[in-house]
């Protein structure tokens, strides 16, 4: 589990053909995109879902976004990816939107109280 299996990443990009790639594999515009990708890869490794299932949910999120006016230029790809990730963990009963919201707010609070330059860490006091 400590090392990435290149074959696993390749299977992901083959099964989800829309992933932005260069000749060697996935590329990311911002660090959080790579984090969202890594989270998904980890959950797949755990057997939480199969790639076709993931591709269907991601495709659905992209369609919904386009219907709502997303320009679909590729720049927003990982926003849809993130929405799909939040949805699949809820559908699989791992967590729910309310819990994610609670942690979102807690991290926001943690960031606010953390002086710049210190690691941002979640503390019980952040859940108010």
């Amino acid at each position, binding site marked *: *589990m400590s090392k990435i299996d290149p074959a696993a990443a390749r299977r992901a990009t083959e099964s989800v053909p829309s992933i932005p790639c260069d000749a060697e594999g996935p590329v*990311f*515009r911002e660090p959080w995109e790579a984090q969202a990708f890594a*989270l998904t890869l980890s959950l797949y490794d755990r057997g939480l879902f199969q790639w076709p299932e993931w591709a269907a949910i991601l495709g659905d999120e992209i369609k919904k976004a386009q219907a709502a006016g997303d320009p679909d230029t590729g720049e927003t790809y990982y926003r849809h990816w993130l929405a799909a990730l939040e949805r699949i963990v809820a559908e699989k009963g791992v967590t729910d939107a309310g819990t*994610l919201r609670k942690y979102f707010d*807690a991290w926001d609070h943690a960031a606010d109280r953390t002086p*710049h330059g210190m690691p941002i860490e979640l503390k019980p006091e952040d859940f108010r």
Partner: protein
Amino acid sequence: MAGHDHDHDHHDHDHEHGSELSETQLRVRALETVLTEKGYIDPAALDAIIEAYETKIGPRNGSVVVARAWTDPAFKKALLEDATKAVASMGHMSRVGDHLVAVENTSQRHNMIVCTLCSCYPWEVLGLPPVWYKSAPYRSRAVKDPRGVLNDFGIALPKDTEVRVWDSTAETRFIVLPMRPAGTEGWSEEKLADLVTRDSMIGTGLPLNPAQTDSKVK
């Protein structure tokens, strides 16, 4: 500008605003924490995946910026005055952090940047920070013993060269403009960009010299 100057004796950060995470960063952190607490993911495994893609994140255009500054005096002047604006003027670059400051290495002064966590590293121009850059030993030693850190990286500077350490703040990120290597007169911007290493823009390295690139395929 004076408010952004942090020399190596200066340990304070700009504490006025706390830290900031974007909406997407918060959502990713929320997911990561919940999934870790529930035992679905192992943070070490996540780090390993992200490290595997370290070179695939962000546009990494810093070397082009440096090469342009070496060949175009007007651009260099603009870069040192307002790096954010100068980099934006290059067109093909995607967005750069709010306040990017370029610090110029000269024979009198060597600059080194230190930052604490990912949010204040100019990844838009430098790609993802190397692991050592985020490590506590680098962060504290860079401030206390910059020459020692440079020695570890194999750089011995003349005794009378001042070493200046720039500590990034939430508002300001730095990029080092290294000195143009000797023997590159008349080189094209493109060829020069190949000499510019990531570490040379952090200040923990020097650009390659022409002899070092001759051995490369290019």
